[in-house]
């Protein structure tokens, strides 16, 4: 992938990622998140992970974000009214986040392989749906089933937590 496209998508993703945090209006945040995830999906595809990219769009942009928007509208959350900003807390949080970033970047700069480019693929046909699927139902069968239980628990949990009237 030409680096121009990479930086374009990366830039879009990061800007909209930041907007999620900056926006005062929850709906704007949620919509920024959608754009951010679309950029992310593009980056996945640039790494030849088409299946994951598509899943990302379907699950996140399609399902999770709709859930978020639905809840925001259900609760009728308006833009945060300007509360007195706690500058100490804000500065503290900001410093911690920046320090974390600095540490991550330092680790990356100390990692030798980070300076290398990606090796070429053996064939351009990755056929990744098939490969991921085979692994998922074969090698990763056990975690896959655990995930099934997890979703069952989540379903039961959501019902328990949101039933208006307990039976």
């Amino acid at each position: 992938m030409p680096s121009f496209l990479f930086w374009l998508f990366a830039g879009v993703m990061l800007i909209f990622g930041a907007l999620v945090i900056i926006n005062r209006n929850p709906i704007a945040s949620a919509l920024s998140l959608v754009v951010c995830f679309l950029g992310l999906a593009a980056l996945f595809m640039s790494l030849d992970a088409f299946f994951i990219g598509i899943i990302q769009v379907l699950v996140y942009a399609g399902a999770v974000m709709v859930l978020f928007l639905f809840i925001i509208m259900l609760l009728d959350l308006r833009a945060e009214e300007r509360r007195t900003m706690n500058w100490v807390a804000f500065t503290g949080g900001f410093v911690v986040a920046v320090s974390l970033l600095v540490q991550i970047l330092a680790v990356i700069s100390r990692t030798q392989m980070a300076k290398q480019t990606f090796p070429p693929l053996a064939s351009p046909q990755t056929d990744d749906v098939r490969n991921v699927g085979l692994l998922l139902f074969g090698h990763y069968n056990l975690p896959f089933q655990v995930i099934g239980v997890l979703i069952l628990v989540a379903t039961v949990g959501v019902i328990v937590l949101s039933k208006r009237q307990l039976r």
Partner: protein
Amino acid sequence: MTTLGDYLTVSGILFAVGFSGVLLRRNVIIIFMALELMLNAANLSLVAFSRFRLGEDGLPSYNAQVLVFFIITVAAAEVAVGLAIIVALYRARRTTHVEDINSLKF
């Protein structure tokens, strides 16, 4: 050409942005979105590593992609339960602000 480091850097920034959201925003729903950013940052790194460490057949290491798949699923389930709790909280307290939920302390 883009290097692995470029992807890792972008992912790292996204992770830090997500974490800053948790630290700075007071609306639980936004905090939740920020958490999603963190998980997705991890996914980006994973996919980059998967593309970088080719398997013996010269294809990306699909093990990492399977893990990404699991992470997405878990994140979705977490969002579902989390939002259910937030809705219940809103019904009980009429707020989604973290400052307003501090009856348990010391």
